[in-house]
């Protein structure tokens, strides 16, 4: 009994930490899908691109994995802008968004993944840093640094973006653009430019999410696929357009998955998380904090 309780506590705590990491990889989709209504299923491929940047910075130049990604953030921002611009010219401008737009991102996912395989092969890669091993001992619980650092990174990213979205003119325009593009023009804002900026930010968060991912686990190019369902589930569960909702959903999923894995075995975890999604949506179709 005693042992079960401490097992439960540790499952909850590391589940919360895992949830913070889920927030880190989901926040970009909370922007592109939650705010722009663009289903970028290629997002996880760019998370992995971020992981490989961290890997190269770390193994070739001996730099800290997170710092490696930080240095290349402007490049990811521009890459995101470019991806949106291509999508805009090829699909959105022609009012051809839904189905063929999805095929565009499918193609992008495929190209990015094949590119990563060609360049990096299919071997598992990992990074070295002081926080990849060891624990923070808090007496009652021990927090592994390799979970704690991604957790903090995730919360810092969400917090910074939340402030940006709520307090700046561009941020508010990003929240508004999918609701009524024509009306946004009447605010003197160019909707295409606003979406380009948002997409750039989304890609930049993917890169940082990638640094978090390679800290938590060794990666290989196809690992991103495991995350597509989970990331979209978190965004829908939290309520589209709501960062706080997305974080609550990410933490919930982390905890539920971890408890399930601890007591019933890891293979049950995905089933349970989608169960949580289905039940929540049955009770609250707009998600936890959806507007």
């Amino acid at each position: 009994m005693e042992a079960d309780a401490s097992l439960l506590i540790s499952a909850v705590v590391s589940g919360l930490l895992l949830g913070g990491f889920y927030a880190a990889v989901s926040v970009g989709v909370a922007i592109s899908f939650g705010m722009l209504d663009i289903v970028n299923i290629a997002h996880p491929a760019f998370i992995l691109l971020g992981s490989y940047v961290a890997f190269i910075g770390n193994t070739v130049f001996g730099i800290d994995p997170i710092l490696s990604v930080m240095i290349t953030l402007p490049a990811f921002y521009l890459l995101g802008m470019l991806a949106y611009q291509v999508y805009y010219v090829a699909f959105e401008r022609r009012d051809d968004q839904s189905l063929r737009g999805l095929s565009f991102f499918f193609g992008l996912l495929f190209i990015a993944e094949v590119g990563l395989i060609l360049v990096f092969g299919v071997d598992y890669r990992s990074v070295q840093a002081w926080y990849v091993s060891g624990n923070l001992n808090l007496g009652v619980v021990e927090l592994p640094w390799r979970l704690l650092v991604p957790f903090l990174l995730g919360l810092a990213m969400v917090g910074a973006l939340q402030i940006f979205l709520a307090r700046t003119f561009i941020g508010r325009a990003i929240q508004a653009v999918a609701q009524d593009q024509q009306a946004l023009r009447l605010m003197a804002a160019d909707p295409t430019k606003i979406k380009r900026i948002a997409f750039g930010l989304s890609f930049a968060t993917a890169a940082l999410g990638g640094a978090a991912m390679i800290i938590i686990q060794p990666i290989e190019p196809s690992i991103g696929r495991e995350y597509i369902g989970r990331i979209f589930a978190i965004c829908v569960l939290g309520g589209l357009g709501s960062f706080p909702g997305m974080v609550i959903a990410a933490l919930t999923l982390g905890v539920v998955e971890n408890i399930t894995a601890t007591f019933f075995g890891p293979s049950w975890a995905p089933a349970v998380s989608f169960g949580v999604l289905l039940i929540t949506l049955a009770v609250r179709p707009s998600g936890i904090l959806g507007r």
Partner: protein
Amino acid sequence: MASSLTLSNIVAGYGAVRVLDDVSLSVGAGETVALLGTNGNGKSTLMKSIMGMVRPAAGTITATIDGTSHELVGRSTEEIVDLGVGFVPEGRRLFPKLTVTENLLLGAFRPTARSAIAKNLDFCFETFPRLKERSNQLAGSMSGGEQQMLALARALMSAPRILLIDEPSVGLAPLLVQRTIDKIKELKDGFNLTVLMAEQNFTQAVRIADRGYVIVHGKIAFTGESAEALNNNDLIREFYLGA
């Protein structure tokens, strides 16, 4: 400084359908001009042509903002708003999932408006106390009257010099129509605006208009040089009021 608007020989429509046929009109500095006409005569098309949302096939639209003239045809909507032409569109077009305050702050996106944001927000809340009470409510959850107030206030947040208002009375109860029209007059005086207002509600519009045009089937059918001229015109009685 003076801000005015002049349309000369505007031809505009949708695809092959011609809606506006050689329309010329002007709004002088500090004037409130009513664009009168029943449903489907081209009032909104004219407003959209000014705002760059419908591209005219011929004609010119000149806006003079604080003494500087700009040709509007060929410019994008966001450029035109940025010059200082505000627009309250048909159907209000609020951001339904954003709060009242967020809608108002978006109104001030225009760089020129950002420095005056606190002052203009105060003014809007003073003029529409209801909006202040509801400042954290989602725009989409408000009543029609409140939404119309928010749409007006949001357009004012961009600190426009010329304001176009498309049918502010639509969907409002008679008492609210009267109040909304009074507010437009109040805002116009407070901000020293030049106003062009499209309306079907002749009686209400003429209460605050200095002058007016009657548009029938996309042509200017009558120009009233004063409110009395509009009130006493036989043509209007016959065609417009059906009396």
